[in-house]
């Protein structure tokens, strides 16, 4: 049964703040906690960003792997932002936030990957008629 049934002083049945959590909000902690959190997030972000810019401008890894490395770094940094700046965690108070995020990521991936895949097929059944078209077929 609802814990409110026994508590007649809460007629509207409003939930306690600590049981649920909205993205971006900061649950009550001591003052320094969130500053330390931010510092850690900033440090990790700086490292990842610097890494990305460094990799893009150097020959330290195998050339064709650079785009993949960049994307991995970008995803890692997005994760850092989600965790340290938006406070998305895996706790039970965050389930709805994570589910919404997962749905959003699914939609983004379907649209981006789907569009690329479909548009890649645009000319597949065509004989190139002009030089320009032939150029466009090259990846």
């Amino acid at each position, binding site marked *: 049964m*609802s814990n409110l049934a026994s508590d007649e002083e809460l007629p509207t049945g409003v939930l306690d703040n600590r049981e649920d959590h909205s993205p971006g909000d900061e649950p009550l902690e001591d003052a320094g906690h969130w500053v330390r959190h931010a510092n850690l997030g900033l440090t990790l972000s700086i490292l990842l960003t610097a890494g990305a810019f460094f990799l893009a401008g150097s020959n330290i890894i195998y050339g064709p792997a650079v785009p993949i490395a960049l994307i991995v770094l970008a995803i890692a940094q997005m994760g850092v932002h989600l965790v340290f700046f938006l406070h998305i965690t895996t706790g039970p108070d965050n389930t709805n936030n994570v589910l919404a995020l997962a749905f959003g990521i699914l939609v983004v991936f379907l649209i981006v990957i789907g569009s690329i895949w479909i548009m890649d097929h645009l000319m597949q059944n065509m004989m190139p008629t002009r030089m320009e078209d032939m150029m466009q077929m090259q990846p």
Partner: protein
Amino acid sequence: MFGKLDLSAVPLSEPIPLITSAVVILVALGVLVLITVRGWWPYLWHDWITSVDHKRIGIMYCLLGVLMLIRGFADAIMMRTQQAVAINAEGYLTPEHYNQIFTAHGTIMILFGAMPLVLGFMNFLVPLQLGVRDVAFPTFNSVGFWLTASGALLINISLLIGEFARTGWLPYPPLSETAYSPGVGVDYYLWAVQISGIGTLITGINIVTTVLKMRCPGMSYLRMPVFTWTALASCLLIVAVFPVLTATLAMLTLDRYVGWHYFTNTAGGNPMMFVNLIWAWGHPEVYILILPAFGIFSEIFSTFSGKPLFGYRSMVAATLFICVVSLLVWLHHFFTMGAGAAVNTFFGISSSIIAVGTGVKIYNWIFTMYGGRVRFEVPMLWSMGFIFTFIIGGLTGVLLAIPPADFVTHNSLFLVAHFHNVIIGGVVFAIFAGAEFWFPKAFGFRLYAGWGKVAFWCAFIGFWVTFTPLYILGLEGMTRRLQHINVPEWGPWLYVSVVGVAILIVGVVAQVVQLVVSIRDRELLRDVTGDPWDGRSLEWATPSPPPFFNFAVMPNVEGEEAYWGIKLRAIETQQLAPEPKYAPIEMPVHSPVGVYTAFFATVFGFAMIWHIWWLAIVALVAAFAGFVVFAWRDVHEFEVPAEEVARAERARRASREALLRKLSEEGALP
């Protein structure tokens, strides 16, 4: 000063739009004069226009939808009759005018007819079914509605000032680019749809948040009524794909206004990218419409069979399955693009698989009726008509999902018949069934059933007489959107189709008569109990119409079919639950910000359409200023005193107790 706008924008040479506009303006003026003479303005302003009550907004959405359905139906009548008289002849509509009509018909029916009605039902019902007092963001709800209304207004302005798009309801480039559509028609389309799309997105966000974060105590996910589930799924899709519409139309707008090259066929633009993106919105869009329709039918089948819905959890699973898979099928709208086998196979299979979810639902409805005590009320007639019609529509859809078959029937009247079959047979039937079902809840009296039955049979028969010939014509090779026809053999089928339209007109008239008769006899049809159909979900626990705070005391749900449980307990113990302690209620204050924003959105849209740049800037600044003033307000909520809550609740209890007594005297109780 006035951009491209001058007197030549009024189509003086074309009598049909001119006369129509004159009639519409006269009627509108008449209504305004009537309101002024009767002194109804304060009531309208305070209780409706600035209302943030989800029930009022829901009703206004439905009213807008009904008006637009009539407008769209008028377009349909013109198209059917034009094709019937234009066999080896010119007909009475010029090609330019005819093209505007089929474009307006599609746009209005989907975006300004069906969408507002579906959103109206969700707005009205979701908070009631969840046992809460309002949606998550009441004022934004009002903004959302009024933005949709301003989109509808813009589309109808195009009738008199300028022209509408001639591109079909999805303005495919390069035809819709400036090079081939230099007029303002496509611009009307772009701004009307863009503005109303933002309104729809706001409502979608609102309902998702309401369902996920605002449910009465005990209302866990698997206790929510199926309509609420479908509303959640539908609004998740709105949140997922309406941004795609916004983005796609924004790209086309950039192409048209500043000469960019997203979709041009020169300088590296890619017209197929538009088709790809717009259908990434467009296909989920039809599921946004049909899912709440499924929810409405689920409520009706269960109520009028006197049984809990068969396979409740499979229904929920099927809804979520459709919600996700509908994001994966959009390419079947352009199989003929010429994609390779991998792409066509993937999308063909996913389009076929989505029918499985619908099949689960159909069986659940049939099994709900099986063994039940079925009452053939008007909502039930629509629902049973739906099952029959929708199955055929679904099956022809599966045919079209097979790429080789689609290559043959693409853009033919077979396709036209198919999507009318699912949208009329699914969405429109659901809207009429739901209107009949929830009308007493919204207005306090039932609709007169006799005329409802006439309306149903006319719509059902009229539908089949209209669209069966179109299936046949499609298979015979007739393509869609033909202004005239050069194949005399098609004539007889087109005549039959016109007969069907005539039957449909009788159905529409019957609906109007039903409304008039019901309003006249409203005292006879009065619903004093608040539960006219022996309902099962929480909206029937409120009086009809519900007080603006919905529930004096938030219900405490203890199982599926929340109200059914409460009702059973009352019948078994022959008394209501003990009277609770009443407390004051906080409710949001009314706000003109919705109608204010929409007014400037309309001005902005109009200014952009006619390239009146200064006016567009003024409208934007004014809209922003309005939001700042709104954000600055000090009073957000007002308190309903406990005494008023108690008074309303005691009246409700008295009517329910009277009913219990009456049943007990009749010996109807166990």
